[in-house]
C-alpha cells in the first residue's frame, strides 16, 4: 500500500524541479481522465467471450436476442429465449460505439464517425457488410457523459477516447 505513493512522490519531485514555484499552485483533485485508443483500426470488429458490463449503454432487443451496449466499446449479446434465465453469449467489440438498431439480420451501429452495417445472421461470425464513412462528428468523446465534476481535457492528438477512468488530476482545466 505504501508503495502506491512512490510514483506520485517521484512525479511531484519531477514537477517541482520542472516548474519551480508554479508547481505550488497546482491543485490535485479527484476526477476523470480519458482512456485513449491510440492505434485503432476503425474496422475493428471482434467477437469475444461474454464480458461484464462496465459502463452501461443502450439496450435493444430483437426476436430472442437482447443487446446491451457497452459505452464506447461494443455490445453484449444475450440469448433471452427464456426471460427467467437470459444467457450471456458474446461480447462484440466495436470501439466508439453507442447506438444499436436492427433490421432483418443487419445490425447498425455507430463506430466513431462511421455508421456500420453488420450481418448477424450467424451470431458466432458477425461480419461488417458496409460502412458509411464520416457521418458523425466526434462530439461524444470530448467529455464524460452523465458526470459532473473535473476531468482532464481531451487531447485529440493522443487518439480517440474510448472511455473514462477515475484519476487524481493535476490542475484540471475542464469542468462540467
Amino acid at each position, binding site marked *: 500500500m505504501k508503495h502506491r505513493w512512490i510514483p506520485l512522490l517521484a512525479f511531484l519531485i519531477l514537477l517541482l524541479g520542472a516548474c519551480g514555484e508554479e508547481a505550488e499552485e497546482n491543485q490535485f483533485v479527484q476526477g476523470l481522465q480519458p482512456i485513449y485508443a491510440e492505434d485503432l483500426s476503425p474496422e475493428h470488429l471482434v467477437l469475444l467471450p461474454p464480458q*461484464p*458490463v*462496465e459502463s*452501461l449503454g*443502450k*439496450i*435493444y*432487443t*430483437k*426476436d430472442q436476442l*437482447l443487446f*446491451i451496449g457497452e459505452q464506447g466499446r461494443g455490445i*453484449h449479446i*444475450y440469448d*433471452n429465449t427464456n*426471460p*427467467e*434465465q*437470459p444467457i*450471456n453469449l458474446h461480447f462484440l467489440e466495436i470501439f466508439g460505439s*453507442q*447506438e*444499436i*438498431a*436492427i*433490421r*432483418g*439480420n*443487419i445490425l*447498425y451501429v*455507430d463506430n466513431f464517425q462511421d*455508421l456500420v*452495417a453488420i*450481418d448477424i445472421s450467424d451470431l458466432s461470425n458477425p461480419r461488417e*457488410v*458496409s460502412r*458509411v464513412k464520416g*457521418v*458523425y*462528428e466526434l*462530439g*461524444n468523446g470530448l467529455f464524460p*457523459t*452523465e*458526470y*459532473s465534476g473535473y476531468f482532464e481535457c481531451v487531447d485529440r492528438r493522443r487518439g480517440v477516447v474510448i472511455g473514462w477512468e477515475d484519476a487524481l488530476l493535476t490542475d484540471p482545466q475542464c469542468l*462540467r
Partner: protein
Amino acid sequence: MKTVFNSFFGGLVALLFILSFAACTADNELASSGDTGVGGSLARFTIIGDYLYAIDHTNLKVFDLENPAAPRLVGEQEVGQIVETIFPLNDLLFIGSAQSSYIYRVTDNGIPEYVSEYDHSLIVSCDPIVATEKYAYVTLRSGGDCRVGFTLNELHILDVEDINNPRLIATYPMQHPLGLGIDGDLLFLCDDAAGLKVFNVADPASIELLYHFTDMVAYDVITLDGQLIVVGPDDLYQFDYRDRNNIRILSQIPIKA
C-alpha cells in the same frame, strides 16, 4: 425405359424439392428483412419502414435501408441543441432535447418534417420521451449531459392528440427519472436509485402508482407486450406484466463484474 423414366421422375422430384427449398429460403429472407427490433427510450437510433433515423447532439440523419446491407445517407437536418433521444410512433418521431420535445412526421420519401414542439426551455434538462396516439410522456432530470444550475426532476404528461399543438396536462415530481416505457395505460418509469415505478396513467391528470420496486437501480426499459426488460448499471431485470394485478419479477441477472 422404366429406368430412364424413373431417373427422369427422380430428377424432377429433386428439382422440385430444391426449388421449393429455395422459395422457402427466399420467403424467410423476405419476412426477416422487414423485421425491426425495439430499443430503449434512451436510444438515438430508430427505424421506421425502410429508414434508419439517427440523431447526434444537434442533427437528425436519415439512412435509406432499401438495401439493408448497404445503408445510404439520404438526409440530414438540424433539430436543436443537446438532442438526446428519439422515439418512433407510426409515422411520427418524438425527439427529446435539452430544451424541447420535438414532433416530426416522416414523409413518403423518408425525410422527416417538423410538426411541432413542447418547449420546456425554462427547464433545461435531459428528457427522454415516449408516446401513444393520445399522450406523450417526458421525463426531465437534473445532472449529467444537460446539467445546468437549476435542477428539476419531473414527469410531464402532454396531450398530443392534436400533434400540431402538444399541450401540458400534468407534472409529477420524481427522484431522478431516466428511461421510460408506455404500454396502453401502463407507464414504466426508471427513477434511477429510487427504483422502478409502474403507474396507471388512464387518467393523466391523476396517475396512480401501482408498483414501486425500490430495491433496484433502474436506467432504461423496453416493453414487449407483457414482458418488461429493465437495466441498471449493475443488473438486468425482467418482469411479467401481462396481469397488471400481479406484475412480478422473472429474473435479476448481475451484469457487472
